[in-house]
C-alpha cells in the first residue's frame, strides 16, 4: 500500500507540473494571439477599462448594425446614415421638424441657375474640421470627386457632377452634366458629407479605386467636421463616437455615443426596459406593444420606408404576368389585411413606388382590393390556376417579416386563381437569380437616400437603365425618361409635383412594383432622452439628442 501511495503521489506531482507547463504555454499563445499591435483593430479603448456607473452620461443605442464601411465615400447603410450625419457634415441640412426644408450647414448660402445645371455654395467661414483646420472648397471638391470616383454604392448621388471649381476657398461652384433639380436634395444626403482632404490624402485616400488605400484607415479614424468623431469600431460588437469638443456649431449634449450590436428586436426591448441602453428604433409593432411606460417613451411615426412586391413578365417562368394579370394581382391584394398581418396595423398603404409625403403623391388614390374585377381581368386574359415562382430574400426589415408578408400575398392571390411557390433564400442567392433568369414574383424594400422623388423614378421607373427596368427586363419607357428629364429641368415646386404625379401614375400603371406596406417606425427611448426625431435623409441626428 505504501508503494501504491508513493506511486500515486509521484504521478500527481508529474501531472501538476505538466499541467502548469501547458497552462503557461497556453497563456503565452493567447497573449500572442491577443496582442497584435500592427493589426488594424479599432480597439481604441486601451487602458484599464471602466465599468458602467449610474452617473454615466454616454448615450447607448441598441441596433442591429449593417455597416458595410466607415469610409465616407464607400459607406451605404442605415447605420451609415446615422454615422455620416454625426461625423461628416453636409453643405446643406434638413429641418427635421418637416423633413422638407433645406437649412444651412457647412454652406451658409447656395443658389442654382434657372436651368438647374450650375450650383454655387458659399461656405460658412466659421466651419472647421475636428482637427481645427478650416473647411474649404478644396475639401468639398475632393469629397465629391472621391465619392464619384470610387464608384461605391452611393456614388450615383454625385454621378451628375461634371466639374467642381474650387478656386475661391470659400466658394464651391458645381457644374452638372445635365439639369438636375434634385441636386440640392442630394447634397443634403449624408453620403455627400465633407472629408478633411489633407488628412484623408495623408492616409492613402485618392480619387481612383485602383490606388485608394484609405478604407482600412477610416475604420479606425474619422476626418469630418461633425459634432462627433469616431472613437472606436469593432465590427459585430460596437461603434463608439466621442463628442467633437472643438465643434464649430452647437456642441452635442452627449460626450460619447455607443451603438451596440443587438441583432434582435426582443433583446433591444429588454435592454431598453432594463435601462442598459437609451434608444432602440428597430422594434416591430408587436415587440413595441406595451413598452410605453413611465421609464420608456415610444413614438410611432410614419416612415418613408416600404416593402413592395415586384412582378416581372420577362423573367423565366413569368410569361403569364401580362399587364392585365399584373393589374389583377394589384386588385387581388387585401392591403388593410397586409398592413395588419405584417405591421400589426401600424403602417399605411402606399399607392405608388414614390412614398406618401414625397412630391407628386398628394392626389394619388389609395390602393383597394377588388377581387371581382381581378377575376374578370384574369378570365379575359385566359389565365386560370397559374403557378408562379416567388423567390424572395428571407428578410425582416422595419419590423416586416417577408415570409409573413408573402404568405398573405399567396393567400390573396390563391383566391383569384394564382398560385405562388414561395421560396425564401439568402440575399446573395436572390441576387444571383434576379441578375440571371430574373424572378417572376419577388419582394424587397426601399428606404430613401434623400428627400427628392427622383430617386424612386430612377430606381423603380421603366426609363432605360433603372434598376427595375433591368431586373424586370421590361421594354424601356421613353415617356418616363422624358417626364423625369422635365422634372429635373424645373425648379418650380408645383410643376415638379405635377410631373412626379404623372410619373407615379405611370409607375402604378406599369404594375411592376406594387407597394405592400409602408410600416411606421417605433422610436423607443428612455423617458429622459430628448430630441428623438426621424429624419428622411439621415435616420437619426445624434447631435440633436440630449438627456433631460
Amino acid at each position, binding site marked *: 500500500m505504501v508503494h501504491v501511495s508513493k506511486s500515486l503521489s509521484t504521478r500527481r506531482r508529474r501531472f501538476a507540473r505538466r499541467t502548469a507547463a501547458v497552462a503557461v504555454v497556453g497563456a503565452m499563445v493567447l497573449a500572442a494571439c*491577443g496582442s497584435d499591435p500592427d493589426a488594424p483593430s479599432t480597439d481604441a*479603448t*486601451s487602458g484599464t477599462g471602466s465599468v458602467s456607473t449610474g452617473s454615466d452620461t454616454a448615450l447607448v443605442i441598441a441596433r442591429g448594425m449593417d455597416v458595410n464601411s466607415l469610409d465616407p465615400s464607400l459607406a451605404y447603410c442605415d447605420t451609415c446614415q446615422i454615422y455620416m450625419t454625426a461625423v461628416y457634415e453636409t453643405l446643406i441640412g434638413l429641418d427635421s421638424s418637416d423633413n422638407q426644408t433645406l437649412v444651412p450647414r457647412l454652406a451658409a448660402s447656395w443658389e442654382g441657375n434657372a436651368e438647374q445645371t450650375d450650383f454655387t455654395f458659399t461656405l460658412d467661414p466659421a466651419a472647421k474640421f475636428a482637427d481645427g483646420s478650416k473647411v474649404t472648397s478644396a475639401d468639398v471638391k475632393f469629397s465629391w470627386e472621391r465619392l464619384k470616383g470610387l464608384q461605391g454604392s452611393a456614388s450615383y448621388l454625385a454621378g451628375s457632377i461634371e466639374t467642381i471649381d474650387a478656386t475661391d476657398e470659400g466658394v464651391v461652384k458645381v457644374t452638372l452634366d445635365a439639369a438636375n433639380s434634385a441636386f440640392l436634395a442630394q447634397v443634403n444626403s449624408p453620403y455627400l458629407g465633407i472629408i478633411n482632404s489633407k488628412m484623408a490624402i495623408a492616409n492613402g485616400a485618392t480619387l481612383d479605386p485602383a490606388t485608394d488605400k484609405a478604407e482600412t484607415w477610416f*475604420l479606425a479614424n474619422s476626418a469630418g467636421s461633425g459634432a462627433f468623431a469616431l472613437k472606436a469600431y469593432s465590427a459585430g460588437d460596437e461603434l463608439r463616437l466621442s463628442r467633437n469638443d472643438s465643434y464649430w456649431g452647437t456642441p452635442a449634449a452627449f460626450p460619447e455615443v455607443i451603438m451596440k*450590436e443587438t441583432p434582435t428586436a426582443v*433583446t433591444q426591448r429588454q435592454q431598453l426596459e432594463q435601462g442598459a441602453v437609451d434608444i432602440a428604433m428597430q422594434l416591430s409593432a408587436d415587440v413595441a406593444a406595451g413598452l410605453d411606460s413611465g421609464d420608456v417613451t415610444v413614438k410611432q411615426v410614419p416612415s418613408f420606408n416600404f416593402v413592395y412586391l415586384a412582378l416581372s413578365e420577362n423573367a423565366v417562368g413569368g410569361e403569364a404576368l401580362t399587364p392585365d394579370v399584373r393589374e389583377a394581382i394589384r386588385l387581388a391584394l387585401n392591403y388593410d389585411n397586409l398592413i395588419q398581418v405584417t405591421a400589426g396595423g401600424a403602417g399605411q398603404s402606399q399607392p405608388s413606388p414614390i412614398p406618401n409625403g414625397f412630391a407628386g403623391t398628394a392626389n394619388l388614390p389609395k390602393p383597394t382590393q377588388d377581387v371581382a374585377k381581378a377575376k374578370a381581368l384574369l378570365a379575359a386574359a385566359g389565365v386560370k390556376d397559374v403557378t408562379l415562382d416567388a423567390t424572395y430574400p428571407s428578410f425582416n426589415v422595419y419590423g416586416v417579416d417577408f415570409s409573413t408578408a408573402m404568405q398573405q400575398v399567396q393567400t390573396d392571390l390563391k383566391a383569384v386563381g394564382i398560385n405562388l411557390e414561395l421560396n425564401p433564400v439568402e440575399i446573395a442567392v436572390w441576387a444571383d437569380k434576379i441578375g440571371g433568369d430574373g424572378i417572376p414574383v419577388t419582394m424587397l424594400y426601399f428606404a430613401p437616400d434623400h428627400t427628392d422623388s427622383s430617386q424612386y423614378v430612377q430606381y423603380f421607373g421603366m426609363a432605360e437603365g433603372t434598376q427595375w427596368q433591368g431586373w424586370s427586363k421590361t421594354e424601356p419607357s421613353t415617356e418616363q425618361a422624358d417626364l423625369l428629364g422635365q422634372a429635373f429641368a424645373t425648379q418650380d415646386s408645383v410643376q415638379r409635383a405635377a410631373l412626379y404625379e404623372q410619373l407615379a401614375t405611370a409607375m402604378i400603371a406599369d404594375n411592376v412594383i406594387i407597394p405592400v406596406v409602408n410600416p411606421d417606425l417605433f422610436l423607443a427611448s428612455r423617458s429622459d432622452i430628448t430630441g428623438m426625431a426621424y429624419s428622411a435623409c439621415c435616420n437619426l441626428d445624434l447631435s440633436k439628442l440630449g438627456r433631460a
Partner: protein
Amino acid sequence: MPLLLLGIASLVFVVSRLTPADPLVSIVGERNLNNPEVVAAAKARWGLDDTVLVQYSTYMKNLVQGEMGTSFTTRKPVLDDLIDRLPATLELTFTALIGGSIIGIGLGVAAARKHNKFVDHIARFFALIGSSLPAFWSGLLVLYVLYARLGWFPGPGRLEPRSTPPGRITGFYTIDSLLHGNVSLFWEATTHLILPAAVLGWGVVGIVTRLVRASLLDEFSMEYVRVGRAMGLRERTVVNTHAMRNALLPTITIVAFTFAFLLTGAVLTETVFSWPGVGSYAVDASRNLDFPAIIGVTILGGVAFLVTNLITDIAYAFADPRIRLS
C-alpha cells in the same frame, strides 16, 4: 497538417464558387446590382473580375504567405477579424466546457453509482433536456426570465453597454481586466459570462453525463472492479482511482471534439447573447457569401480540430499509462 489545411481551403473555395449566389450584393448592396460602373469597380477592387482559376491561385498564393484575404463585409483582413473575435469565443467556450464537463462528470458518476435510482433518473433527465433544447430557445428563455423579468443576471454582450473594455492583452476580458488590476470590471465580465456559458454548457453537460454514466456502468461490470471491491477497497477509491480512469478515455475524446465544434459552432448562443465571437462572424460571412471570411472560419475550424486531435492524444497518454508505454 499544412497540406490538409490547404486541401480544406481548396474544397471550400470550390464549393463557394459553385454556389448559385452573387457575393457582389454584400459589397455594393442590392440597389446597385444593375449599375455597371459600380459593379465593375467592385469586381476590380475585390478581384472578382478574374477567372475563378486566377482567383483560386491568387488566394492560395496569399494563403501560403499567411494572408487570408479581406472580408467583404467588415472590410478588414480576415486574419485580423479572427484574431479580434477568437478570444471572445474562447472565453465563452472554455467557461462552458469546463463548467459543463465538471457538472457532467459529477452527474455521470452520481448517476452510475446510483444506477436506476432517483438520482440517476434526475441526472438523465437533466442531461436529456440539455442535449435536446435548442440554444436559441433556452438562450431567449433565460434572458427573458433571469435578465429581463427578474434582473438577477446581466444582459447580452461581454460587458454592460456603457462599460469600456479593458486594454487588450489576451483579448479575454476576465484575464485582461485582472491584468489591468480592474477587479470590478473582472467581476462584470465574469457575470456576463454566466448566462451564455450556462446555455452553451448545458449541452456539454448532457453529452458528458450520459457518456460518463454509460462508461462507468461498463467499467463497474469489469472483473478488476469486482476484485477491488472484494479486496475491501473503499467505494470512492474503486470509482475515482480505478473505474473513473478508464471511463474518462472516451470522455476526453468527446470533450475535446465538443470544444473544437463549439469554437465555430456556438452560432446561436453568440447571436442570442450579442456575443462578438467567431460564431456570429461565421453567420454573417455565410449569409453574405463573404468568401474570404467563410474560408477563414473553415480553416480555423480545421486547425481547431487538428490541434484538438493532438491534445486528445496527449491527454490520452496522461490518462492511460498503456498508451504512454506503447
